[in-house]
């Protein structure tokens, strides 16, 4: 292999780069799905939203009371959250009243990306234009930690009265209702009862949200992989090129080896070692580089596409979450075809009489 250093290093670079791209997408979407699962583990089992003319509308206290008493339901609470467009940084924030409280009136706790975008820190004052055009100001009481940034990057936590003043939501009305059901097997039944009691509402199950997240990340992965398929195709053509014709030098060498007493299987074994070493090295370099790219550098090449934030990008490190099956699939998709592509022509050359190869 050292004799064809330039060619093999070039091949290693192209091959490793391809594995790197594929593994990066795989690792990143897998980690995002893992992250979303962790986030949703805290989420209520069912979220009830009122619909008017097919649009999401605030729910009233009557809706909340109507659900009380359903068997299997441990608790119902009204949630207050919404979006606010900030023309200063041209971004949407998610404003939310934390269910457990903890935010004093007139203060706000900011998500890390939002704090970065506004250049604001604890003690600063941040103002928004309310529903009536008036300015509503908050003193920043704190910044949320970075390790939850995927969910909290653009989050702004404020107190209930401030939220109602800012958005003009009257007391007793909520954005939606969060339902807690301890027994997972009762979730479906409770959802049916909710719909019976509140025909103008929809019940969103946590499992459905998880499926949606998974589908979104899968879809985004596909979006990234589609243009990459060009690169994959180029590599396949390169490998096939190698497969469909050995160089005259390689054919001559195989002829020499056969002439001096190597069997076809000896030649194949040697080429298998060469191809195996090259593809394993490429796989190793590609996956290690992808691991470092995704979990060390937070995937700067993929984040804009896969993460889904348009303006406020979360600055966070993903928890490494790699499935063995995925790695195995990647291994077979990259190493196996390469080995076949290199071994076929060698086999073809090695099964002919050595004098023919050398003519």
């Amino acid at each position: 292999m050292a004799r064809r250093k330039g060619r093999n290093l070039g091949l290693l670079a192209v091959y490793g780069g391809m594995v790197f791209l594929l593994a990066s997408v795989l690792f990143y979407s897998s980690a995002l799905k893992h992250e979303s699962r962790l986030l949703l583990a805290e989420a209520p089992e069912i979220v009830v939203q009122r619909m008017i003319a097919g649009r999401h509308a605030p729910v009233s206290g009557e809706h909340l009371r109507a659900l009380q008493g359903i068997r299997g339901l441990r608790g119902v609470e009204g949630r207050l959250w919404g979006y606010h467009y900030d023309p200063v940084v041209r971004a949407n924030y998610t404003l939310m009243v934390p269910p457990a409280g903890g935010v004093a009136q007139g203060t706000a706790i900011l998500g890390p990306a939002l704090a970065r975008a506004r250049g604001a820190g604890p003690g600063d004052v941040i103002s928004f234009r309310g529903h009536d055009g008036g300015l509503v100001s908050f003193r920043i009481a704190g910044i949320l930690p970075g390790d939850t940034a995927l969910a909290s990057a653009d989050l702004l936590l404020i107190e209930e009265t401030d939220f109602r003043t800012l958005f003009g939501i009257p007391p007793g009305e909520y954005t939606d209702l969060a339902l807690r059901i301890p027994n997972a097997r009762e979730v479906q039944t409770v959802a049916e009862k909710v719909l019976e009691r509140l025909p103008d509402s929809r019940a969103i199950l946590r499992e459905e949200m998880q499926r949606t997240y998974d589908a979104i990340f899968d879809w985004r992965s596909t979006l990234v992989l589609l243009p990459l398929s060009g690169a994959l195709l180029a590599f396949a053509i390169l490998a096939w090129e190698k497969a469909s014709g050995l160089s005259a030098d390689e054919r001559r060498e195989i002829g020499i080896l056969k002439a001096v007493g190597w069997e076809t299987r000896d030649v194949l074994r040697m080429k298998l070692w060469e191809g195996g070493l090259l593809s394993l090295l490429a796989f190793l370099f590609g996956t290690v580089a992808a691991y470092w790219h995704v979990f060390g550098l937070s995937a700067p090449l993929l984040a804009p596409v896969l993460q889904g934030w348009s303006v406020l990008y979360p600055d966070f490190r993903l928890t490494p979450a790699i499935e063995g099956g995925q790695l195995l699939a990647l291994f077979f998709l990259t190493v196996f075809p390469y080995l076949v592509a290199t071994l076929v022509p060698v086999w073809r050359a090695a099964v002919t009489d050595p004098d023919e190869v050398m003519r």
Partner: protein
Amino acid sequence: MNLQIRVVGVRKAFNEDRPNRFWAVNGVDLHLSEGQVTVLAGPSGSGKTTLLTLIGCLARPTEGRVLLHDRVISSLPEPFLAALRRQTFGFVFQRFNLIRGLSLLDNVTVPAYPLGIPRRALRKRALELLASLGLGHRAHARVESLSGGEAQRTALARALINDPPILIADEPTANLDSELSLAFLEILARLRSEGRTLLLSSHDPLVREAAVVDRVIELRDGRVVADQARPGGSAR
């Protein structure tokens, strides 16, 4: 004298099933004895090299048989042919066919790899062989840097690494000057004295008339046209 190699009604066609098919070897019968030096002579295109490849199991005859110690070898399956090429025949090619990019030592050890000989013992034997052919000091040089004579002796060392009883050399002096050709003939005499059977192809008069040669077989158009025992051959 033991009869060692027998060629019976051998024909070899190239471009078979095509309009330009031709018979490179066209009905050859030969008996080659053990421990002799035999030269296949004849002009270019007479079928010398093709006959050598058929006897050395590098190719199969289209018709006829090649026998070694009364055992038909020309129709053996490939793994058996490879084993014969590895351990029974040593081959020195006209263009030497050394593997570029490798050292002399690596080239010489190549035929022994399938045998699984321990690396240290193999390298020792290869170094001894190279030293016996005057190439010990160049063992680690790349083959690209070799002169014609050095390349030929390296090819000879490679042919001898598995200690084959039969050595086949195709036009061994074609790329050598007279001095190097004579040196090669001296090496042949040494190999013959070790009891090896030597089969050469050559149209070099220096080889045909060398004292070490026992027999000259003249080929033309793929057929044997003369078969002479050399009265001065050292076999007698």
